[in-house]
């Protein structure tokens, strides 16, 4: 009897811990081999056959197709800094320069990867559309209300994700530090 109870208890613990850990890692997006530069993180291995099992499970679960490493690389930003996740009700400025690439695109998604509805039907920018300063840097204002210049509407959603995709770029598996890869910085301005 004690043996049976013990076995049942051990199995229940195993199921709880095992499935709980799987659910948690996939939900939180824990994957190895990421490179973080400022607010941005990319997983260059996700576009190669060397993709790690956790990233594979996440890709299979979400249904996305990772950008192949011969094509480009995707950097994601989910928060301005550790304390402040990206909030669609606030004004956030994205400014600076991007690493060397033939083209880049910036896209705003909700946390599930869907585009966010807004009045002007703008979901992102490409490197060709952006208005730049004389010095070659640019600033994109991300917020719920219309702005002059480069305005990326958030539609007032609570949480969003930014994806900066670099196409035909030397940034990839060999990229280590942020020195050769100047990513644009995110700063939160007004927040009602």
């Amino acid at each position: 009897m004690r043996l049976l109870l013990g076995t049942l208890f051990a199995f229940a613990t195993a199921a709880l811990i095992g499935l709980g850990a799987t659910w948690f890692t996939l939900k939180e997006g824990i994957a190895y081999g990421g490179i973080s530069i400022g607010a941005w993180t990319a997983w260059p291995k996700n576009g190669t056959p060397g993709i790690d099992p956790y990233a594979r499970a996440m890709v299979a679960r979400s249904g996305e197709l990772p950008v192949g490493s011969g094509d480009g690389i995707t950097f994601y930003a989910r928060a301005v800094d550790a304390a402040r996740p990206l909030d669609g009700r606030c004004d956030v400025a994205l400014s600076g320069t991007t690493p060397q690439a033939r083209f880049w695109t910036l896209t705003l998604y909700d946390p599930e990867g869907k585009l966010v509805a807004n009045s002007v039907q703008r979901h992102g920018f490409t490197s060709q559309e952006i208005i730049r300063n004389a010095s070659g840097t640019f600033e994109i204002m991300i917020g719920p209300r219309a702005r002059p210049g480069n305005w990326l509407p958030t539609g007032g959603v609570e949480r969003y994700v930014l994806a900066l995709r670099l196409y035909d770029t030397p940034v990839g598996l060999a990229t280590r530090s942020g020195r050769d890869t100047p990513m644009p910085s995110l700063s939160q301005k007004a927040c009602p």
Partner: protein
Amino acid sequence: MIRFLLWLLGGVLLGGVVHLATVLLLPGMATQDAYSRLAPLTPVNKVVPVPAPSPDKATMPFMDPAFAMAVCRYDLTNAPLKFSVPISQAYTSVSFYTRSDIAYYAINDRAAGRRVIELDLMTPDQHNDLPDNEEITAADRLIVESPTNTGLIVIKALAAEPGLLASAQNLLTSAKCQPQPQ
């Protein structure tokens, strides 16, 4: 008490095994992965345009709305595949994914170095079966080996401005993927 802790320890260790097993088995059991989402929309060995994502409807999450996209869902069981796509003004890329959505090869217009990206897709066995001399005469032919018999070819053309999306989509209609006559 000690007996209880031992059972608990056993449960925790077994939990680790369960965790690793589920993570490793999950990709094989997924029903909402990219290949499964595209399968009902795409006949085999044919280039099919993928509708541009919108807030209401998107074939896959995290699609880049600046790109026109088309997919060829291939099956190499019977014969290798010939693939070609003309390149656009801005940027064109071709990415290859296995049945389990692993990107194993990607090429862009500049790496192809011509007005048309042209290549042959085959399994490693079919590659080995190629006659030797043919490989020499066809030295400029790009051969891509697919690790699996089935998979996806994803063709993307950049629309640098939203107004150019229609022409990028139009360009992708000239893409071809056809089984090679044997």
